[in-house]
């Protein structure tokens, strides 16, 4: 199998083009051909410059049939290629010497339509910085964030089937192509190695942006796949796009809250947690059709119960729970009593922030390929509490736990939708069909990890789990639970079931260290610097 590489050199300095060409020439794999496409006036001098590095039959320098922009020129360059795989570089970008060897190995399976690798930034002095270590195939992530970036290699037939490179998408070509190929791809493979070095400034950080085509690429994707959302620029971070739930069907939703009427100090006041939680749902939610099912321990005191009833009103149903405490079982009992086919598990120490939280979770959860959707949870002072769960080294953790409220995360993964191996059941939406299919929350985990186990069961059954950054809630989690009380038995039970996934989370790049915060180990960071 061979791969065609296209370099669009329009207007680029010859030495930068030659750097890209030399990096292809230096490949350990032999199965490549290279097309350098440039303007007619630069053709002869560029060809000379390239040939000074050595004459190679696999390299061709050509001009487009008529003057076109960069995207049109790229499309024409691709049309001239003949290999089964095709990829492209911007002038000045470099490939690692074994990049194509790795890609060819990854694309060996006949069903692989799309391969992408990690990348970093190449400074003018030749140093490298800002590594972008990516997750494995993450369709929800790609929707509004072109995370696959470079190197992106497509099976030529799949690219052509998806409509090829569309010149009118100009600067959003990469995102557009990744979306369209990704929608139909039989398999997408991520090579978790930094094999591509992008010359700064590159599209990810460059001020050269084209807001209109960015929106168009995403809007057309939403339209094609029937995703019920509209896309717009994030008002707080104009460089980012965000989704908003579009008006759609509003199926009944059941919010299941296990509680024992605990009181706790929040915002300097001793409050009835569940009444506060239910009150925030009733007051802030704009979703029309939902019920609240509270699974209440029998020894809950009458005052707490009365406060809950007074707050919940007609939305509320109380299910008594008589057995010894078991969080998993309380959720299961609540679900058995719930009337809807769309379920939200909610801790009683949460409080709704965003009025459209149910619509937002549902926007993701209604996709038959999605299993569980989690929310963005904040401590009382708005610091981050949950943006999805990461597994690393046989443990699970919350990335950015306690980080500043407006922290964006690695490749903005605290602010854009991501796929993750699990989300917390402190706020989790799931469809009843998924819940039934995997047997609900496992009683093997009475207190901890029942949510992680539930999500891993879904993952194993072929569903994707999603972090939704647009549904925000407070989570007044006790500090004790965060630090200490986790049971070793439950962790061992989790490892007995899911040890392999816990050691290699597909959505957590192995290039990161042992902490779940998407930070590089010190040694690698130093080498890159």
């Amino acid at each position, binding site marked *: 199998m061979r791969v065609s590489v296209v370099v669009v050199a329009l207007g680029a300095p010859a030495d930068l083009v030659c750097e890209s060409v030399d990096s292809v020439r230096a490949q350990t794999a032999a199965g490549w051909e290279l097309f350098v496409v440039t303007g007619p006036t630069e053709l002869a001098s560029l060809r000379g410059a390239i040939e000074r590095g050595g004459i190679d039959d696999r390299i061709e320098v050509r001009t487009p049939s008529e003057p076109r922009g960069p995207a049109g020129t790229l499309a024409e360059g691709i049309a001239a290629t003949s290999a089964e795989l095709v990829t492209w570089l911007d002038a000045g970008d470099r490939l690692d010497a074994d990049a194509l060897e790795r890609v060819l190995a990854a694309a060996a399976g006949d069903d692989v339509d799309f391969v992408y690798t990690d990348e970093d930034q190449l400074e003018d002095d030749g140093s490298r910085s800002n590594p972008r270590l990516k997750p494995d195939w993450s369709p929800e992530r790609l929707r509004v964030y072109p995370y696959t970036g470079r190197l992106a290699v497509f099976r030529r037939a799949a690219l052509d089937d998806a409509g090829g490179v569309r010149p009118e998408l100009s600067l959003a070509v990469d995102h557009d192509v990744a979306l369209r190929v990704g929608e139909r791809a039989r398999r997408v493979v991520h090579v978790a190695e930094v094999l591509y070095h992008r010359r700064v400034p590159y599209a990810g950080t460059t001020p050269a942006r084209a807001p209109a085509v960015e929106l168009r690429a995403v809007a057309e994707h939403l339209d094609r796949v029937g995703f019920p959302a509209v896309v717009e620029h994030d008002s707080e971070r104009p460089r980012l796009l965000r989704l908003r739930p579009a008006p759609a069907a509003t199926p009944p939703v059941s919010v299941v809250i296990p509680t024992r009427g605990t009181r706790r100090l929040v915002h300097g006041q001793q409050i009835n947690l569940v009444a506060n939680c239910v009150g925030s749902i009733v007051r802030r939610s704009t979703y029309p059709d939902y019920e609240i099912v509270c699974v209440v321990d029998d020894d809950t005191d009458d005052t707490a119960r009365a406060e809950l009833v007074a707050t919940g009103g007609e939305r509320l149903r109380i299910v008594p729970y008589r057995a010894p405490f078991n969080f998993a079982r309380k959720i*299961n*009992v609540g679900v*058995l*009593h719930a009337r809807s086919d769309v379920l939200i598990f909610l801790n009683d120490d949460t409080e709704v922030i965003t009025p459209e939280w149910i619509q937002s979770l549902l926007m993701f959860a209604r996709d038959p390929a999605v299993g569980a959707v989690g929310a963005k949870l904040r401590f009382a002072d708005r610091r981050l509490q949950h943006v999805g769960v990461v597994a690393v080294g046989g443990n699970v953790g919350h990335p950015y736990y306690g980080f500043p409220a407006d922290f964006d995360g690695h490749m903005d993964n605290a602010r854009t939708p991501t796929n993750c191996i699990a989300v917390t059941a402190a706020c989790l939406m799931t469809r009843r069909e998924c819940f*039934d*299919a*995997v*047997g*609900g*929350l*496992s*009683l*093997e985990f009475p207190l901890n990890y029942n949510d992680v186990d539930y999500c*891993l*069961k879904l993952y*194993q*059954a072929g569903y994707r789990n999603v972090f939704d950054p647009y549904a925000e809630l407070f989570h007044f989690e006790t500090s004790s639970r965060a630090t200490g009380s986790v049971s070793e038995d439950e962790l061992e039970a989790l490892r*007995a*079931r*899911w*040890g*392999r996934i816990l050691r290699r989370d597909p959505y957590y790049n192995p290039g990161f260290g042992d902490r779940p915060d998407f930070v590089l180990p010190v040694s690698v960071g130093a080498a890159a610097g």
Partner: protein
Amino acid sequence: MEHGRSAYLHDGVVPYERNDYWLDEFGRIARRIVTDIHPESVLDAGCALGMLVEQLRALDVDAYGVDASEDAIAAVHDSVKEHTWHGSLTEPLERKYDLVVCIEVLEHMEPADAEQAIESMCAASDRVLFSSSPYDYAEPTHVNVHAPEDWSAQFARQGFVRNIDFDASFVTPWTALYERSHAVLPEVVRSYDRAWWQLRSEVRQVREKVLELHAQLEEGAGPVAEENLRLREDLLIARDELVGHEARLGEALGRIEVLESELRRHEEATAEAQRLLGSRTGRALRAWHRIRAMLRP
């Protein structure tokens, strides 16, 4: 006029003619008349094909039949030919009977004729077992359909009152046994009220029970709902156990793979070591080791 009996008793599948189905049906009614009323003589007023007369006679009852349809009377079975005749109920009957039976007949007669017929029947007996369909207004021969209380009122004009304690539903759900009564109004009211109160209490209890069951269904409570919840929870647990076992099996298979590849590497290393030991270098190495051993103090 068409004979009336088929209008109710005809179930739309078995045609009204002398066959096993209808003979069985009238046999059943005849047995109940004998056991519950035990009359010595009976007139079936509107007897149609005379099958009830036949069955009553088979039970030693002195039974007779009259019908306004000549065709029907012409078609009665030979065994009862001499006990049935063609005639109209609007004419007075010639003799008295212990019981007059009139099943699904009067709704086919003009109102004035029906009133006459009631008068004739009441003159001929102290008891009338009476049935007239309160439904089927659409049936074209139903020219005189009334609710049961209207018929009761007509019988009351003849001094006949429904026997409240007698359950005549073995004929049709709306059949009544009317009897000549000398009771004064307070007594009649008392007996009707007693029946009415019983029914009312019964209906109330039934409705309360229905409401309770309905609420249980709504709330997911009650024994049936609880059993349902228990089963659904057991199903969840069983599914989880299955998924858990599969996951642990996957883990074990993964460990086996790792161990197998380690074993292979070990075997390859051993083979390589043996190859080395067998070679000339190996022999030299062994010699060197021997020399070192000898040199060691």
